[in-house]
């Protein structure tokens, strides 16, 4: 079993290294993605809100709005044109004159964050002339670990561990099945468990290369922090890789065609792209969905990665997440071994 496992692991790695496209997707792509995102979320100072105001609004109102450097004001003569601009999101709020001696009206879309922000800024601007001094002092955060990229990076790392685990295993297995190589293995005394296990062991080796490359890039180029222990970080990624290797085996355990496996993979990954807090926290979903989100392996991995990297969490803190990852890995592997289609 030991020798077989070693040889099968070696085989998987050799085959992997001989696929240039795969190398690109595993190493280059996530780094390019992190670069692009880092650029997209670079500090750009405060962006002014774009607002519209009707020409019929009182002069005082229009002057106060124009005076604010948080607002970029567009004046409309025609109410319908202005409302259309709001509906299309070209302006964040629209200010129109109030009836008789009422205050001006602010039209907004409460579901849009920009709209809500603009409302507050408008309120601020209109109140400014009435106040003697500022109500609050403001100090923007600059602390390491609190930028969006700091939040995003562990999510990207997790997503990458998931993606390479699932895709790498899925396509390879379907290919082997189509070539009838799996059947050829069946007439040898090769232990079947060793064959499936080799997918997990070979993942560990690739994982080291992949995660180290991304981590080095994150630490040096993006200044992402790694507050916790690097050993714990390594252990966590191993748990993550094993978990997704198991999931990959299960997803690929029956599929016979590349299209089938593509669809299955997307179906499995979709909820995690959305619900596992890669790009935004899953806390934004309704409370009722949180337990479901937290049960997903990618959520466990992302949460634990963030805890270790950003909050310097220790092993005890991330024990529940490690448990979730382990459970997914073990259960998927065991089921895959049972239902695996060798022909």
């Amino acid at each position: 079993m030991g020798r077989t496992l070693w040889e099968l692991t070696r085989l998987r790695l050799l085959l992997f290294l001989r696929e240039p496209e795969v190398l690109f997707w595993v190493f280059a792509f996530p780094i390019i993605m992190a670069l692009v995102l880092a650029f997209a979320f670079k500090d750009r100072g405060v962006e002014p809100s774009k607002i519209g105001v009707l020409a019929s609004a009182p002069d005082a109102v229009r002057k106060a709005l124009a005076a604010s450097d948080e607002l970029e004001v567009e004046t409309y003569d025609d109410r319908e044109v202005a409302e259309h601009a709001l509906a299309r999101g070209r302006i964040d709020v629209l200010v129109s004159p109030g009836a008789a001696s009422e205050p001006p009206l602010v039209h907004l879309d409460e579901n849009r964050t920009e709209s809500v922000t603009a409302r507050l800024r408008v309120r601020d601007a209109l109140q400014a002339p009435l106040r003697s001094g500022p109500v609050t002092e403001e100090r923007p955060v600059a602390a390491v670990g609190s930028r969006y990229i700091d939040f995003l990076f562990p999510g990207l790392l997790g997503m990458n561990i998931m993606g390479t685990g699932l895709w790498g295993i899925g396509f390879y297995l379907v290919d082997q099945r189509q070539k009838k190589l799996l059947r050829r293995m069946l007439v040898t005394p090769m232990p079947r468990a060793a064959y499936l296990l080799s997918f997990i062991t070979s993942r560990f080796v690739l994982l080291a290369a992949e995660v180290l490359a991304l981590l080095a890039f994150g630490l040096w180029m993006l200044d992402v922090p790694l507050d916790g222990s690097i050993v714990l970080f390594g252990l966590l990624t191993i748990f993550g890789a094993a978990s997704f290797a198991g999931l990959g085996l299960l997803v690929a355990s029956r599929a016979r065609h590349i299209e089938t496996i593509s669809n299955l993979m997307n179906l499995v990954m979709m909820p995690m792209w959305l619900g596992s807090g890669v790009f935004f926290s899953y806390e934004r979903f309704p409370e009722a969905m949180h337990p479901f989100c937290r049960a997903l392996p990618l959520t466990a991995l992302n949460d634990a990665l963030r805890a270790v990297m950003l909050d310097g969490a220790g092993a005890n803190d991330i024990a529940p997440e490690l448990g979730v990852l382990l459970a997914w890995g073990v259960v998927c592997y065991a089921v895959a071994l049972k239902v695996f289609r060798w022909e």
Partner: protein
Amino acid sequence: MSAPAVSAKGLVRRFGTVVAVDGLDLEIDAGTCLGLLGPNGAGKTTTIEMLEGLRRPDAGEIEILGMGWDRDGPRIRQRIGVQLQETMLQEKLTCDETLRVFASFYAHPRPRDEVMDIVGLVEKKGARVGTLSGGQKQRLALGCALINRPDLLFLDEPSTGLDPQARRRVWEVVEAFTSDGGTVLLTTHYMEEAERLSDRVIIIDQGRIIAEGSPQQIIDGLDAEAIVEFRIASDRNGADLPDGLFDDLPGAGSVRRSGDVVSFEVTDVQAAVFALLQRAKEHDVALDDLRTHRTTLEDVFVSLTGRQLRDG
């Protein structure tokens, strides 16, 4: 006499309503080669895969090297070598790496260089599988089947799709294995292959055995020394010939026509051909492509089924 290396009784395998193998018995004596000859779809692959433990028979019993699949699977697998009908090896591995992986499955593998030597791929050791010719790939697959010094070798159409020279090189490897005392079960739809490699042949059609014995015994069973074959010249319409024109030639057996080709089995070639030419002259019929050949397994198959071995 020692126990047979393979013994199967009453094998049946159905796929839905298709009965792929329909009550088949076979035995292979240790150290001999059995050829399973039949056209496409005859049930050869289904039969050999049941014997290899890849498919469970719906009915019947199988004993391999004195063991049964239910209890001794892993032990049987240590001692058999298998070449499946259509395995594509990993193109991006080298020959040596391919053998290395297979070697790791067995308790006592042969040195890889020895295997390369047996299958004649020594100079291709470091070449990627994807760069090999069809014949070389087939020999590498044979090498994988031989890596554990098997006592029993299963070969499913080992030379299908190869050119004659590549085919002969595959045959040489198989012959070397049998001359070392190995036992072989081979399926093929080439009668030359069956005749050359097999000590005994089983001809199957539609999942049943229709003839069995040594190639010579089977041919003798047809009771025809040779086959005479000719075409009726194209400018004369076959319909114009009197019915049964060639039916009662001395020394000739049953007549068969397919298209404008007429053939019959003869027991006395000289007498039959002489009578044939005379009869043709009498009726002013021109015979094209007149030839005779020694009876082959193919002729036996045609005689028994009315179809050609290579009909799809």
